């Protein structure tokens, strides 16, 4: 494969921490893993937490630190959701890899090289239940020579027997300060100009997801050059400007259906993603002081239904209009039930 052009390299990859101790904000995990490096022994592990908090980074870093570049290929198997991962793969590929014996642990070139292999299953929550079940016995049988690292967003999607075989680590969403310091570091390296307002915008739109923050930053840098304002960041992130969402809510409060209909039309014509709109509307409604709890409940219920419909592929305009009409009825205290239905 030809080398990837320098400019096309993703910053997310470029600034991925190479060592476990560089992973930001996850002290407990880092402490356990540093210990692992010293004793060169570790249990099966399960990393879970929201996206962009460093789960994959940590797993890759520990694998690299344990084995070094030379042995890495032969000792580590990395599978993620894009690879085919049905029950067949578990029965053949994973099992074959797990069964291979490895030489006794000698330090090579300054790396601990413990006598086991690592299988990293990224995005394990998208594995089918059957495939997970097929793994149970494999994990135990070959536990002498193989360690499994599971990485997932939702621990509830991992079947209980697998979860109970692993040491679980929860990755916390990154706090704003940690995020800012990483972003500023990248800005310095890439010689970008980011003012304080843009920095806080970036932290708020990425919601603790460092990867997303870096991606936005790179997109903005590519489109708008080296000095980036908070408006540029909003435009690349696809976040809807707060004023529009507020205006939408105000219109709903006014109780005029035709005005709301026009507003919905405009939102669609501007090309704003409706799922994002629903999300921001939810945030606004939940935080609003002048909306009673019952009204909030009614609005939120509809938002959830509309989101499900959108996932099923329903039309954006109709769903948003339905949400608008429902919100209006809730805010103006009109009855929830329709009067002419039979």
């Amino acid at each position: 494969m030809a080398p990837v052009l320098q400019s096309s390299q993703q910053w997310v990859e470029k600034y991925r921490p190479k060592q476990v101790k560089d992973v930001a904000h996850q002290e407990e995990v880092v402490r356990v893993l540093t210990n692992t490096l010293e004793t060169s022994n570790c249990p099966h592990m399960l990393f879970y937490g929201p996206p962009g908090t460093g789960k994959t980074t940590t797993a890759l870093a520990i694998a690299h630190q344990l084995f070094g570049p030379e042995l890495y290929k032969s000792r580590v198997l990395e599978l993620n959701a894009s690879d085919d991962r049905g029950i067949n793969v578990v029965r053949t590929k994973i099992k074959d890899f797990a069964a291979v014996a490895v030489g006794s642990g000698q330090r090579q070139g300054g790396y601990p090289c413990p006598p086991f292999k690592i299988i990293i299953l990224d995005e394990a929550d998208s594995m089918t239940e059957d495939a997970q079940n097929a793994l149970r016995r494999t994990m135990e049988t070959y536990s002498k020579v193989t360690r499994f690292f599971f990485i997932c967003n939702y621990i509830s999607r991992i079947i209980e027997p697998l979860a109970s075989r692993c040491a679980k680590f929860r990755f916390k969403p990154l706090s704003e300060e940690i995020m800012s310091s990483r972003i500023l570091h990248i800005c310095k390296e890439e010689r970008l100009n980011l003012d304080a307002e843009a920095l806080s915008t970036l932290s708020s739109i990425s919601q603790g997801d460092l990867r997303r923050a870096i991606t936005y930053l790179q997109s903005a840098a590519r489109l708008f050059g080296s000095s980036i304002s908070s408006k540029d960041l909003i435009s690349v992130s696809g976040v809807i400007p707060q004023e529009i969402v507020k205006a939408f809510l105000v219109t709903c409060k006014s109780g005029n259906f035709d005005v709301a209909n026009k507003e919905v039309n405009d939102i669609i014509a501007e090309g704003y993603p409706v799922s994002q709109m629903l999300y921001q509307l939810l945030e606004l409604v939940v935080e609003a002081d002048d909306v009673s709890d019952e009204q909030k409940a009614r609005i939120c219920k509809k938002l959830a239904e509309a989101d499900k419909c959108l996932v099923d592929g329903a039309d954006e305009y109709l769903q948003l209009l339905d949400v608008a009409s429902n919100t209006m009825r809730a805010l103006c205290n009109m009855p929830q039930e329709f009067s002419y239905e039979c």
Partner: protein
Amino acid sequence: MLWVDKYRPKTLDQVMVHQVIAQNLKKLVTEQDCPHLLFYGPPGSGKKTLIMALLRQMFGPGAEKVKVENKTWKVDAGSRTLDIELTTLSSTNHVELNPSDAGFQDRYIVQEIIKEIAKNRPIDTKGKKGFKVLVLNEVDKLSREAQHSLRRTMEKYSSYCRLILCCNSSSKVTEAIRSRCLNVQINAPTEEEIAKVLEFIGNKEGLQLPSGFAARIAEKSNRSLRRAILSFETCRVQQYPFTSKQVIPPMDWEEYVAEIASDIMKEQSPKRLFQVRGKLYELLVNCIPPEIILKRLLYELLKKLDVELKHEVCHWAAYYEHRMRLGQKAIFHIEAFVAKFMSIYKSFLVATFG
């Protein structure tokens, strides 16, 4: 040649509506390279035009010499081989296709074609631009699996090909793909912008435009530039010189839907429902997409209804449209909506007038 094609901007500098975006895109590709791109926006807003202009900017006029190819792809899907037929548009530097045409087999198509492109990597005489561009239309109609398999493929072959994705609504594209692309939001042109473009075309064609005429077409166009230009041309064919009172002809199917709406309002009975069904079938066999019929029907009905009924009717429209997506035959759901509406309206009439 239709005016829509005749006056389609060929380069990024000629673009009239999204000038800021065009200039940004130009900046983006000056460094010989671009990231994966995702264009999203409502129909008729100029996504395709921008993409074509961008390709021209990257590869020069050669990007416009496209040939249509209808090819059968042999895909090895584990235990069996599949034959998938698909039409592609390609030039030396780019390939364009509608992966959703392949139905549920779309995931194979995407991977197979990207691999094929990776194999035949073009080499310039100067040894530069060693990548092709793959333009995928209607990504929002791709199945979940295809989108999932796309994300790894995108990373793996990023040195061979760049993807330009194009879709109407970005909420149907998974987060994973969106985060790998540079998202470009294309909004629908405002009515003033449309009017400006129409005046520009009128000038080029040497036509006399009465004042306010362009604005009236723009108003009727639902902020879709393509539609505005098409109806402008229709007006030109119908009557020239233009008069300021000239009627801008609506689309015939829209008139038909309006007729259905007034039918429903006039009488609510099984007999009328039966007649309406015939008319709906008429629309469907003429290839008007069902969700558009439903939306238009709602639009017509909302114009005539009392406020208290509007909430109810729009709720049911959303409800049946969602059902339509999940179900198989659209006619059931449109008809169910009509029946529902009739029952609501009837009981409203009974309650109001006794």
